[in-house]
């Protein structure tokens, strides 16, 4: 069974304090690893898709990387508006390419 584990469950940072979120996965036939951001009371918002080990993508203060077993979401000099739950999901091959999500990491950035 496909498994996605995110750590830590919660992370508190001071504004400007860089850190990383981890997403480890056990799947067969990975067809993409997705990062989403979810604000309270809202649906997940797409951030990145990574397809192969060694791939990196950046967006403002966020950088996502992928290895054969895990992905990291690096947050550089975070601001309070980066506070949210960050969800990782994997898509495997098959007839429907469905997403399997992790439980998420709740990030709080204090001013």
């Amino acid at each position, binding site marked *: 069974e496909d498994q996605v584990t995110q750590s830590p469950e919660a992370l508190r940072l001071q504004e400007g304090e860089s850190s990383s979120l981890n997403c480890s996965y056990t799947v067969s036939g990975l067809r993409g690893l997705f990062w*989403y951001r979810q604000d309270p009371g*809202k*649906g*997940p918002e*797409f951030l990145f898709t990574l397809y192969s080990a060694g791939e990196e993508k950046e967006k403002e203060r966020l950088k996502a990387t992928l290895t054969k077993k895990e992905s990291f979401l690096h947050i550089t000099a975070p601001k309070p508006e980066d506070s949210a739950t960050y969800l990782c*999901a994997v898509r495997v091959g098959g007839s*429907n390419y469905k997403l399997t*999500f992790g*439980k998420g990491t709740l990030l709080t950035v204090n001013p």
Partner: protein
Amino acid sequence: EAGVAQSPRYKIIEKRQSVAFWCNPISGHATLYWYQQILGQGPKLLIQFQNNGVVDDSQLPKDRFSAERLKGVDSTLKIQPAKLEDSAVYLCASSFSRLAQDEQYFGPGTRLTVT
């Protein structure tokens, strides 16, 4: 471009009652998904439609949950009868197709509380 629309945003019902949720996907998106997100967990796929046909409903509790997507556009998800453990946020998402490279766009969700 208008996003995925869902209604109602909130619903409180008693156990054993029935409830229905509505979703209008992004125009032109052939694939529609319903997810259940229990507090503190990631979304779990309940059912996936390609146009008006079901692609995957393996995690849908079919004894109480049903969903339809008539005419391949709007969709409704129904729970009858509801149980306490059905309390969750029900998210609708859509994508252009079900190919691996297509990202899914999520609606704001319906928060269901079963008392």
